[in-house]
């Protein structure tokens, strides 16, 4: 069975696992999706990713590959027929890798910081930081896209996938905090890009419904708040 040659261990709500869905879709690769329960991780996940024990994991010819950015590049190299995910020119590849690192290590850390910020002032500061990060990425979008629809030009590519996977969680942060983060006035390029990204053929059928994601997030944060309340005091 061709599909069992490629397996993805992921969760429906994980933006990093979504990257793999999209990339395999771009390459028209048939794969088996294994929905993991992170509260009760499967033996396969623990064996495939003994280091971090996290999703996503891509298993190809029984060999596991971990870390979403490493997986994206692997997919591009293992299925080299068009359409490509990374640009072909080394300089544009470097630019894409640079911004992917910024989005993952800086911007997404700030987005996560919104949830953990306590108090109105800290929340506002965290949200401002996310918005400022998007302004920086807006400028990068302008330079990378050169007037076209996506970071990669006419079709979605590496950087589109890296940022686009967070759109659902960005919506969650907006709704939970009653603010606009992806602002059409401050970030017109990104706002238009986001709509086109979500409509892309490789994205629209695999992107989780944003309101389902919001319900899920509300449930998770409620459970976390309850656990914190019930936690024994630190002496």
């Amino acid at each position: 069975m061709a599909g069992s040659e490629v397996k993805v261990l992921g969760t429906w709500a994980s933006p990093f696992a979504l990257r793999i869905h999209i990339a395999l879709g771009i390459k028209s690769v048939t794969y088996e999706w294994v929905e993991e329960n992170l509260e009760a991780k499967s033996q396969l996940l623990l064996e495939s990713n003994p280091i971090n024990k996290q999703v996503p994991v891509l298993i190809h010819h029984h060999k596991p590959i971990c870390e979403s950015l490493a997986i994206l590049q692997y997919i591009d190299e293992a299925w080299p027929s068009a359409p490509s995910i990374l640009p072909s020119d080394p300089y544009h590849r470097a630019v894409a890798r640079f911004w992917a690192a910024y989005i993952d290590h800086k911007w997404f850390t700030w987005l996560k910081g919104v949830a953990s910020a306590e108090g109105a002032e800290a929340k506002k500061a965290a949200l401002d930081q996310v918005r400022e990060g998007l302004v920086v990425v807006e400028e990068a979008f302008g330079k990378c896209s050169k007037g076209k629809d996506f970071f990669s030009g006419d079709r979605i590519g590496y950087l589109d996938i890296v940022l686009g996977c967070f759109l659902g969680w960005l919506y969650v942060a907006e709704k939970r905090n009653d603010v606009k983060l992806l602002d059409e006035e401050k970030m017109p390029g990104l706002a238009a890009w986001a709509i086109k990204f979500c409509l892309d053929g490789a994205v629209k059928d695999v992107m989780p419904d944003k309101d389902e994601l919001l319900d899920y997030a509300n449930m998770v944060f409620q459970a976390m708040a309850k656990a914190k309340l019930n936690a024994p005091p630190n002496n």
Partner: protein
Amino acid sequence: MAAQKVKLLGFWVSPFAYRVIWALKLKGIDYEYIEEGIFNKSPLLLQLNPIHKKVPVLIHGDRVICESYVIVQYIDETWPHCPLLPQHPYERAMARFWADFAETKLLDTAWLGLCARGAEREKAAKLAMEAVEKIEEVVKGKKLFGGESIGYLDICLGWISYWLPVWEEVGSMQIIDPIKFPATSSWMNTLLHHPVIGDNLPARDAMIEYFQKRSKDI
């Protein structure tokens, strides 16, 4: 493009800048080195890397590339002779995974250990050792991560062979125990004896002095 002039903005004690120096030297690429003062950043650095304001920055013709591991991959792809990344996609993915692992689980924790004191330092050193345990399994049975020649992962992890012992000394920590980690210790030794690495390292005494001062200031 490959024939265009190459410049590198670095800082004499930065392990990140040395990744780029090693990659350029291994490939035999001529370049002009520009020393940056990290506490007194030049207008050039701020203009070329406005996002992070950090070295290293590679300037190749009119192209500017930042982030050491991005630069090393750019060098590997622009000058494909003497390849640094493995040829097979799976091996390349492994190299990328372990480079990222060592950065987040070892470099960051070892640095934290250097800057912390007391229990915090002990905790960081312990986490760093746990990371080395994993790296030991990867390098076991190998001369170098790249096999017979230095590769991408050797370059990304090369700081372990020279910067980490300095941090251990300054921080009075032991992270690399040669009895517990014989394969890693052997790899460190092999790397330091390679002419490109061994001949391109900052002076140890100056490093000790620098990191002693830095760890006090932080």
